[in-house]
């Protein structure tokens, strides 16, 4: 077991430093790049916090949907192939729901301010 602070806490401390201490000192294109850098660290923090739980549930749904076992990457590959072959489609029970939950979990990490995501978040599925 590794010591603490955790990766989330460490990453956050760097993001906070850049946001509060460095942002006021920089302008122009470098300021734009600094914003991108901070966004990256925030994304990493969200992924470190959320991925474990969401990936486990994704695997559970994929196992039920496909009737086989495997890693989250392997199962996604199989699902992609089956959709490509037409073996699974939106009429397949559980597919639409699975894709929605999986996509919402991705947006929660990638782009939680994206307007389509915020709209769907406010909806009762």
């Amino acid at each position: 077991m590794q010591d603490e602070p955790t990766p989330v806490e460490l990453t956050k401390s760097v993001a906070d430093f850049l946001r509060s201490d460095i942002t006021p000192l920089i302008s122009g294109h470098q300021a734009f790049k600094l914003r991108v850098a901070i966004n990256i660290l925030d994304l990493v923090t969200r992924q470190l916090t959320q991925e474990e739980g969401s990936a486990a549930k994704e695997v559970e749904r994929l196992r039920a949907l496909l009737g086989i076992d495997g890693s989250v990457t392997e199962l996604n590959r199989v699902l992609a192939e089956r959709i490509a072959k037409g073996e699974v489609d939106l009429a397949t029970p559980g597919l639409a729901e699975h894709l929605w939950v999986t996509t919402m979990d991705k947006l929660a990490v990638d782009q939680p301010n994206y307007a389509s995501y915020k709209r769907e978040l406010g909806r009762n599925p």
Partner: protein
Amino acid sequence: MIETELSRSVQRWCKGATGVTGAAKLSGGASQETWRFDIVHPDGPIGAILRRSPKGYGAAPTRAAGLAAEAQLMQLAFEVGVPSPRVMHVLTAEDDLGTGFIMQRVEGETIARKILRDEEFAAARPLLARQIGGILAGLHRLPQDKLPELRSRGATQEISEFERDYRSLNWPKPVFELALRWLRDHDPGPSVETTLVHGDFRNGNLIIGPDGVRAVLDWELAHLGDPMEDLGWVCVNSWRFGEIDKPVGGFGSREELFAGYAAAGRKVDAARVKFWEVMGTLRWGIMCGGMMQRFREGPDHSMERAMIGRRASETEIDLLRLLAPRGS
């Protein structure tokens, strides 16, 4: 310094010009650059823009029409009254500036978020969707016998091309697979009419002023094909910049776009427009994947490129909203 070459160039083709000032690079990757500068003239400065591939970068990427074709299209558009900058000069070897062209600078805004939010454009915004319909109708009516040589692309070929691009990424995405299936199932086949298609007509590629659209830019993806492609692409959610209930670039409704197109004497096929909107959403998603791949494998190891890779999921949610919408 680029001003030396530009000064020599303008004195050859711009009567009375004595040189240039204020050259500044606006954007540019390795193969294509945009510069702004002012031509010094006894009647007052003339605002100009240079679009060029620097020497040694002559070859255009496969999908691009090439800068010479772009210049020809913009000039043609200008002549028939489609808002477009006037092309002042097409570069020759003598100019020693690479390949490309110099055009008149049109003042206005291209940054989509500013156009959608700043007070300056408040009066223009409600008129833009309809105006864009009229502009697209004019663009689709450009005389075909005057067009430069362009690639020809219909729906069926585009599906195959995007599928190939997506498969080459080795990036299994169930939502993209679903979209590809949907596109194949809804392929409308060859269009009744083949016209010039701009190929990248969207909020971000338009110069807009308080009076509306002043110029259509970035013709590099122009081709011959289904005119409905342009109407679908301008509606892709990625170009609404948060104004998701206004499909036409965040400005207004499809009905207004269609009305403007019809008022200019051209027919809309709404089912084809929807097909191209789905196609366009997937197209941007695959482009995000391409950015990720270039970030990982190519020389451009920038943070910006990396983050665009993480925007593919935006197109996944938009594809689901189009193909498997949830109840309210």
